[in-house]
């Protein structure tokens, strides 16, 4: 069973085709990279998978059931979580609260919601739930190495830590598939190396599948087992890192035709 399957995915905004006939299959437990020049449509793919956009045509399957057109919170509850290219933490909440809120859906979905409203108000049988959420949240923070700042306002964290918090938050939703959008943006080489180790570790320890968008080639080549390259919304190359590195089409997309004709 492929954990994620994108079938002929197309996204048009008026006359602009942001994503064109994309086909992608993700194995469970894979570390998969989605790369390409700016504007290639990578984040758009994320937005479609997570339900923020409805694709113009094509279908999406998660663990063999179709999720095309589901609303974003439904998609997350099914087990897909994401981080954002422009960090979108809950600024007024603390680091710990950011991670705790990601667990909220597990107690409040469906018909449970009204019941939990009353429990929250009357505090009947509630405190154990709350302390469990807190413990779990602290665990996630520790895995990402940011538990020391648990009670600080999330907006006060340094940039790199904010990115790690986004990952912790996504994990806390209980997802089995993580979509990471430029997790290494703004990180220096040693932080990036640490991130590679961390992502590998969480994939192993938590049985996750990771699909990430990145521009930092060190991370992509060092971490990803398979890579897909997009340009103008279409797939121009796919395969393991060494194959993609040598693919002429990829080089052309990033560096332009002249680079090739100059005999490179």
């Amino acid at each position: 069973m492929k954990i994620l399957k994108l079938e002929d995915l197309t996204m048009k905004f008026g006359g602009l085709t942001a994503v064109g006939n994309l086909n992608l299959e993700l194995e469970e437990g894979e570390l998969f990279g989605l790369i390409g020049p700016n504007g290639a449509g990578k984040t758009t793919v994320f937005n479609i998978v997570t339900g923020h956009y409805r694709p113009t045509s094509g279908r999406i399957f998660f663990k063999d059931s179709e999720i095309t057109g589901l609303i974003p919170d439904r998609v997350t509850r099914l087990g897909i979580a994401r981080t954002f290219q422009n960090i979108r933490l809950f600024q007024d909440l603390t680091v710990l609260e950011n991670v705790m809120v990601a667990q909220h859906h597990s107690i409040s979905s469906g018909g449970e919601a009204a019941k939990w409203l009353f429990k929250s108000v009357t505090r009947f049988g509630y405190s154990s739930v709350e302390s469990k959420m807190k413990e779990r949240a602290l665990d996630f923070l520790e895995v990402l190495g940011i538990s020391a700042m648990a009670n600080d306002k999330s907006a006060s964290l340094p940039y790199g830590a904010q990115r790690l918090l986004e990952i912790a938050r996504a994990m806390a939703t209980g997802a089995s598939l993580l979509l990471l959008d430029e997790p290494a943006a703004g990180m220096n080489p040693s932080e990036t190396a640490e991130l590679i180790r961390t992502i590998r570790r969480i994939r192993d320890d938590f049985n996750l599948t990771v699909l990430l968008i990145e521009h930092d080639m060190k991370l992509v080549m060092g971490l990803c087992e398979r890579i897909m390259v997009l340009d103008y919304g279409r797939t121009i190359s796919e395969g393991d890192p060494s194959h993609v590195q040598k693919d002429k089409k990829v080089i052309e997309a990033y560096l332009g035709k002249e680079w090739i004709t100059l005999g490179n």
Partner: protein
Amino acid sequence: MDPKTLLQNFVNGLSLGSLYALIAIGYTMVYGILRLINFAHGDIFMMAVYFAFFLVTLASLPWYFAAILAIAGAAILGFSVDRVAYKPIRKAPRISALITAIGVSFFLESLAVVVFSGIPRSFRTIFPQFLNEMIILGGQVETRYGREVIVGGIRFPIISIITLVITAIALVFLWWFIYRTKIGMAMRAVSVDIPTTSLMGVNVDRVIGITFALGSALAGIGGILWAIRYPQVWPYMGFIPGMKAFVAAVFGGIGSIPGAVLGGLILGITEIMMVGLLPGAAGYRDAFAFFILIIILSVKPSGLMGKPDIVKV
């Protein structure tokens, strides 16, 4: 309803609708540029009426002079409201701007209560000659409160004809202003993208101020025409017409001037039709506009001529 009454109601609705249209244009222009619902717009309409009233009664100015000054006063007031209350919070979240707009609205209303007193006044005798000096079109002319033109048994109050004509002139003027002048182009640019427009060297604040002034002037015109037709003048007179004009603007597609006019006309016609068809429901005529609002916002929030927003993540 027999065809003659139907047609009469249609005509009445058209004239009421054009009043709504004049006010709706101001709402839509400001929203198009600032994404702000200027709650105070209806109150500027009210202020213009008071200006005209006191210019005639206290300053003994002739009606045409008073009207022009009142409209200019409305424009200046609109401009000032933006400068004083909205400009300082341009960068604040939109909710803050909305709350502030409500505050300004109440401020103007309570100011009117304090300065002009809350006692309703009558606009009836303010512009009498105005109506007498009109050209008489074919058909009988009956003298009642307002002069009317009766064509084929259907009454066209002079004031209605004037309102329609003025609305048409306003539309033409606006079209010329927005599409044929530099400032108009600046306004269009600001409504699309403020930061880039200011980088292009446009004084965005001035453009926004002019937009307010223009919209407020139209509201002033609408106010005076309204007061001639419904002569009761009191500090809260702007609330309901303002809300209805807003509904009209949303109905037509907020941000679109032709949409605002279309929305205003349709709203006026349907309101009169509703009262005509269901006389027992006359007390609910104001609620009718709100119902329309809820329905539009639920079914097609972008209105008749508006474009839906796509949110980028």
